């Protein structure tokens, strides 16, 4: 049994079905990747698990440690240890990095300084800066990861964790992911990147709001290696067949 289970999940927004009968589970303490083309429903799945506004009205069930969480608010889910890092992190005029990280910090967890060091940001330079537009997208991305490290969550979803991150800094993000894992967290990486996907042990392939395939990461990798092109949401992992992987 996984730590978080999604069962027959449907989500319709403005008359369009975004998630269609999704059933999967995430294994405790493991790193997972959720992959697929644009519009596949990857970020929507994360938003539905987090219970964000506009993504709460789901059919089906989401269970965390065996208990349904679909009726819980975002902060109630967070208090259970579930959290999300956005693809494009929020900006806060005037709010200092110290306060931003302090708000997330778990009792007895790692300090803001340690978290900043882990993501490659100097505490002396950043703690008193504001989390606003004076920071680059990459810096905010690292800060968001730092805020998750201090929170010490049990289940964390990172939406496009490499977005806006330069190649030299990417290893810091990966170290952060490993730190989360060492803390005992279950990690879900929502990604388009092979490099990021390779950080995961398991992968789920989405297309058109459906879960198309799942398995050990190497078995899903061919999608990123040009062996499967987008089609009308009927593509399956290539194991022979035509160029779309159809038998």
């Amino acid at each position, binding site marked *: 049994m996984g730590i978080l289970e999604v069962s027959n999940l449907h989500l319709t927004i403005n008359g369009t079905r975004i998630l269609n009968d999704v059933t999967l589970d995430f294994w405790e303490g493991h790193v997972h990747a959720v992959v697929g083309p644009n519009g596949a429903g990857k970020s929507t799945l994360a938003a539905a698990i987090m219970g964000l506004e506009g993504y709460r009205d789901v059919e089906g069930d989401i269970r965390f440690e065996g208990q349904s969480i679909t009726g819980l608010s975002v902060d109630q889910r967070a208090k259970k240890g579930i959290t999300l890092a956005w693809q494009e992190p929020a900006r806060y005029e005037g709010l*200092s990095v110290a*306060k931003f990280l302090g708000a997330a910090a778990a009792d007895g967890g790692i300090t803001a300084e340690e978290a900043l060091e882990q993501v490659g940001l100097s505490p002396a330079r950043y703690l008193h800066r504001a989390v606003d537009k004076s920071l680059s997208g990459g810096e905010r991305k690292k800060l968001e990861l730092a805020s998750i490290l201090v929170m010490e969550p049990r289940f964390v979803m990172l939406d496009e964790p490499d977005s806006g991150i330069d190649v030299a800094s990417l290893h810091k993000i990966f170290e952060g992911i490993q730190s989360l894992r060492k803390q005992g967290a279950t990690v879900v990486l929502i990604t388009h990147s092979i490099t990021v996907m390779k950080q995961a042990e398991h992968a789920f392939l989405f297309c058109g709001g459906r879960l198309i395939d799942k398995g050990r990461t190497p078995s899903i990798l061919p999608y990123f290696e040009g062996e499967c092109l987008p089609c009308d949401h009927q593509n399956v992992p290539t194991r022979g067949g035509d160029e779309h992987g159809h038998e």
Partner: protein
Amino acid sequence: MDMNNLLEMAGVNGALQDPDTAHLAIDVHRVMSKNLVPGLQVETEEAEGVIRVRIRVEEGAHIHRPVHLCFGITHQQAQQLIDMDVEVGRKARIEVLSHCIFPRATDVRHQMQARIHVGEDASYRYLEKHIHSDRGGLAVYPSAQVELERGARFSTDFELVRGRVGTLAIDYVLTGRYHSILEMVSRVNGRGDDDISIREVGYLVGEHARGALTSRVAVRDRAQAQVYNKLRATAPHARGHVDCKEIIQDDGKATAIPIVEVVHPLAHVTHEAAIGSVDTKQLETLMARGLDEDQATELIIEGLLS
């Protein structure tokens, strides 16, 4: 409660003991203490119903440590009228921290009318911080006419985020000449039935004059705020920006009236105004870290007004 309690509350007791730091402390219309440093002259005249303050910074003088002005009222009911003239001499520099402390007010009116002249290439920075009671029985009317000469700089930061606002009506008119810079920031946190009015008008009349008017206001309960920011540029290469952000909650009401007027083809003035509730993404990010909605909202507003 005496003046020392007020100064302690403002956290400026230490500065006021320092002989190298200039200060002036006034309770209603009475001067309680004063210290001057070279290059700075302060004259006061206590009269019936008003205190007149004349501040002069000598030409070329650089006042290195911030000057503390403490305007307090230890009584629950009082009227304070401050009539102030400020003259910052050519190439002089001064920073003033003004503490307006009314922690017991139930029926207090604090009115400041100032005329400020900043000489050529001089700089005047004025930070005004209010500490009010939680009862809301205050009426605060700061007004000023500010004249900036060639190359002068004037920046002010008005902060009223502790205690209830009561009634606030800021009224500033500023004129900037050649290569001058004027910057105004106002931060106000309204609740209960607070009534906030901010009126700032800047005239950029000299070539390359620059101006920025920034307002950050939060209103909740039944509080209301009206922000009127106007920048008028009439000279070549004058540049300006008006920026107003207001967060409303509960039955709060907010109005923003940004006006930009440009009457020279080489001048450029921009504006942005946003009124609304707290941004959903900001809120949900903090909630996804375990804060409840109220805690997250408080933190966002605290940042905006910091």
